[in-house]
């Protein structure tokens, strides 16, 4: 659905929007949700630095221990949580995820943030919004709105982990 250049353009636009909304990214911290949110956050920080010369702290936030569906599947391995050295207290935290779907990951992330500090504000950036929200959650920055059926799967590939940049819509067999 999206190729490398499309992803790049979307991220550049999101970076501009973050700069605009936060008036120059003052006090902004980007937190990527593993696994691919982390790389997206790093890319966004790169773009922001390129445009304004402002270095934005980047971190990662693993939400596994806060998920509400843990008991539906066997215990899974944890991702990394790395907060910037100055923490997140009184910062504007922008959560970065690859796909926004039910909103449950974001809910878990909000709970996790609660235990880590008290940000001034929390915003959400997603590369793809595929709809079907199950919670009252919306993204502040969206790369691409992708109408999907619930039977389909959206998969994001990134150079850093998958050796290619692409967003692919997979139709389930027999669905």
């Amino acid at each position: 659905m999206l190729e490398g250049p499309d992803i790049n353009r979307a991220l550049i636009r999101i970076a501009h929007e973050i700069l605009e909304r936060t008036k120059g990214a003052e006090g902004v911290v980007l937190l990527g949700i593993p696994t691919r949110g982390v790389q997206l956050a790093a890319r966004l920080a790169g773009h922001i630095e390129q445009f304004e010369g402002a270095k934005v702290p980047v971190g990662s936030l693993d939400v596994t221990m806060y998920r509400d569906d843990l008991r539906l599947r066997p215990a899974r391995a944890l991702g990394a949580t790395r907060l910037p050295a100055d923490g997140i207290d009184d910062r504007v935290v922008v959560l970065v995820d690859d796909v926004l779907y039910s909103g449950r990951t974001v809910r878990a992330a909000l709970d996790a943030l609660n235990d880590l500090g008290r940000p001034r504000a929390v915003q959400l950036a997603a590369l793809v919004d595929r709809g079907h929200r199950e919670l009252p959650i919306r993204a502040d920055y969206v790369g691409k709105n992708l109408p999907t059926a619930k039977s389909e799967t959206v998969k994001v590939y990134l150079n850093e982990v998958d050796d290619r940049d692409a967003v692919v819509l997979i139709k389930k067999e027999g669905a």
Partner: protein
Amino acid sequence: MRRHLISAADLSKDDALLILDTAEELAAVSERSVKKLPTLRGRTVVNLFFEDSTRTRISFEAAAKRLSADVINFSAKGSSVSKGESLKDTALTLEAMGADAVVIRHSASGAPHRLASWVRGSVLNAGDGTHEHPTQALLDAFTMRRRLGKLDGRRVTIVGDVLHSRVARSNVLLLGTLGAEVTLVAPPTLLPVAVETWPCEVSYDLDAVLPKSDAVMMLRVQRERMNAAYFPSAREYSRRYGLDPDRLAKMPDDALVMHPGPMNRGMEIAADVADSARSTIVEQVTNGVTIRMAVLYLLLGGAALEEGER
């Protein structure tokens, strides 16, 4: 991962690494201001201790509480056990109370294995007789990996009362799985029968082994389990097998000194050595909580597995 953790031999290399990696991520929780995760909310962990233990019980309790589980402490003293209740009846009582996991310490080797056939929840072995103590081995491996970078090919020397040590047995098994080379050093009287079948080397000369060790683990001389004279005197034992400053000097500069605790200072380990910068003894306690959180999460955090399912 299996449903129970009874022996270090139950863990494949992948399982063991998953536990260590999970612990690595959970270590940060102990440094946060809010030292709590909601993961095991509504789950009940029973600490069933038939033998005295302070650090292991507290460690399991802290780990379960940091994951928001409810903890029930059951010690044999002053309980129905002192009135003659059998292990099976105790197990059925716990079962009726809805325990999701039972952490058991028992003086009889094999008690956790037996218990596992009676309860539906997970059974975690917190030390059974002279058999095994798998979470101790995991926390030791975790401590070594954090300090030495990796375990593959590292040389670990375990010294002392191997005969009575469940820590030694679990460590030999786990370290073997993780690719470390283990050497046991002990007086011949304190080595178990058939030790030559264990996946490790055996030596009687501590001074010869020390210069080639990346970590030296001192075992406590377990007087309470000794019903015969295993060595002539404490003084002689400590001269031949105790870790004193002279022996510490023979070890490589970055080699670790470990002890599972509780220590007999002046017996198997000199006070100066126990308090030296190379000793990881306090770190091992901190890591104990972390590794037990990882184990509890991996056993209880996901969907309940059916019997036989991996």
